[in-house]
């Protein structure tokens, strides 16, 4: 069985070094003969057994002798592990392509294909002071009244985007999402969901803008997500509102009204019904996606 592992290992090494190509050919011959119930003639299996046993023997003779005696069993074991790891790697690759994470949809676990966590991460779990109600429940839009959300665009498929202006992950995801909103035929509903203290004050403002000029919210978001977090203050809001052509005085006045505060609270209650535990959270046709994911993942979820 060791020849099977050798074949794959040497084949990979053979890409980089010619000396392994000969060994690959030997391993292939060995595997082929074994598959056809014949004896391996190259002696590669014997050489590997002896070399590996001696390697262990050098450090600990007893271990080396154990490896030698139980080599066939160990070979089977490693072959099984190897096959299992191949299958796992295949599943990981599939998950990475489909969900942007090799551990499956919305996983926060380490992914070898994404070692720096580019496609992972969301703000929320570590921001309990802001949204202590966050839980690890199933993410769903069922029973959620989307009338509380701001509709940015109308289209065929439905996208609901929960974002926090001060959240680094939402900011990372935003350029991709923005491109997605623009290029695809989708209805986009936006929910300002502050997971960081710095952005709590923005929620009533953007809600008022959404009520008064929903078509300007997209441009407003573009400006706010491009503004450094430490510069998110009232002055910036005034400036941004003016830039997008909204009546900044009316919007800011609206944001201070009690009714707006109530609306924003209700909006957050509806958002929490989704089971949200961090931002960015995007639903595409009801399917959730957490974290800054590649474009292909959002596109795949379209009908």
């Amino acid at each position, binding site marked *: 069985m060791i020849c099977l592992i050798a074949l794959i290992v040497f084949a990979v090494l053979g890409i980089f070094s010619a000396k392994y190509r000969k060994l690959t050919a030997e391993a292939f011959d060995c595997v082929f003969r074994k598959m056809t119930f014949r004896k391996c003639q190259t*002696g590669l299996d*014997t*050489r590997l*057994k*002896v*070399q590996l046993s*001696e390697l262990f*023997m050098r450090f600990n*003779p007893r271990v080396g*002798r154990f490896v*030698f*005696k139980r080599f066939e069993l160990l070979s089977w074991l490693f072959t099984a592990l190897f096959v299992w790891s191949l299958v796992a790697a295949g599943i990981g690759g599939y998950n990475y392509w489909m969900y942007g994470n090799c551990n499956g949809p919305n996983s926060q676990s380490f992914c070898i294909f994404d070692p720096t966590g580019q496609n992972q991460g969301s703000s929320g779990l570590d921001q309990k002071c802001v949204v202590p109600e966050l839980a690890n429940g199933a993410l769903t839009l069922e029973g959620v009244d989307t009338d509380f959300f701001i509709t940015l665009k109308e289209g065929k498929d439905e996208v609901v985007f929960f974002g926090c202006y001060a959240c680094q992950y939402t900011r990372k995801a935003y350029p991709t999402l923005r491109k997605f909103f623009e290029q695809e035929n989708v209805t986009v509903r936006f929910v300002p969901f502050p997971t960081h203290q710095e952005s709590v004050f923005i929620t009533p403002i953007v809600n008022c803008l959404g009520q008064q000029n929903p078509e300007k919210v997209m441009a407003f978001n573009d400006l706010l997500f491009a503004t450094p977090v430490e510069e998110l203050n009232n002055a910036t809001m005034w400036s941004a509102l003016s830039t997008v052509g909204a009546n900044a005085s009316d919007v800011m006045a609206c944001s201070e009204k009690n009714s707006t505060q109530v609306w924003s609270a209700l909006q957050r209650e509806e958002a929490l019904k989704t089971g949200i535990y961090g931002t960015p959270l995007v639903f595409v046709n009801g399917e959730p996606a957490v974290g800054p994911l590649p474009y292909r993942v959002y596109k795949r979820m379209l009908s």
Partner: protein
Amino acid sequence: MNRTDFPAIRNGIAYFDSSCVSLKPQSVIDVMNAYYTDYTACAGRSSHAWGEKVTAEMERSRETLAKFFNVKSQSVSFTRNTTEAINIVAHSTKGCVLTSDKEHNSNLVPWLRLKNQKRISHFILPTDENGISMDTYESLLSKQQISLVAVHATSNLDGMSLPIKEMAKLAHKHGAKVLVDGAQAAGHKEVDLKSWDVDYFACSGHKMLGPSGTGLLYAKDPDSLEPLMLGGETVKETWLDRYELEDAPHRFEAGLQDYAGILGFGEAARYLQKIGLSKIEKHCGKINEEITQLVSAHGMRILGNRNSEKRGSITSVIPNKMKIHELNLMLSNAGVYTRSGAFCVHSWFNKHNLPGAVRFSAHLYNDDSDVEKARAALDRIKGLL
């Protein structure tokens, strides 16, 4: 014993594969190098100084080897190896041929081919750990009307030697000729062909400290043999419709010869003579006795007689648990070079349904340090054997 003469083992390798190919002393290498660096030329053709020197040196090698085996130089032809020499004899053989059941493929396959071509009848002389039964041998000689006895002098499988002198006497009594495969005996012990009184004798240079690609054929009556190959130097004269064969031994040496190799072969014989064959035999016997004790202590099965004195310089073993190639590799990794497999005597292993063996074969350059190295290597894998 003169270990330093052998550059190949200056790195401390314990070389126990001399039955396959022996190491070369520096003097042999120097003689061969001198041919290439100082006087590269053809023998027997060119009359310039280099050509004359090569011719003289080649004939000197022939004389040395003839003296080495105590025969006349005209009866010694150079070949590429033992196999070629045996094939020359086979080429001229008819009738009934007797071989032992322990012959190297070089002294079996040519006869099997002739048998398949219905040119000869082939009979087998059985052997056991005590050698052969002379009664069985004589019975076969008389009943089967054997015309040629083709046997080894010393087996490369287990180191056992046959009583060639007695066998030749009996064979001649029954009108049979005797061909001896002396590959394993030559260079390991005194081989006196005059005393043995055999008709043909074949051996290789590479097993007696000489270069590979060299061998010789001794024929008591060279005219009884037809050359296997014809061409340059095998004829005195040619016309467009006929040729006149050269006298022996040259008629068997077709084409340009391996002059460097032949000169090296002669030098190897001189080197061996200088040390003395009886001394070499005694030394190899001592090393073989130590190896025998070592492998016996590890419980391995020894092929042939358990008494090392009967096995010359060879100890072939079969481990109880480990596979032969595994043991060979383990030893190799420890710097102890042995040989595993069937040693070109597949027929014997097939007859006994054995997978092969690991062979320790010593020569004059082996010493106690090699045995100690083998001991350390085997002790390391104790319990796996």
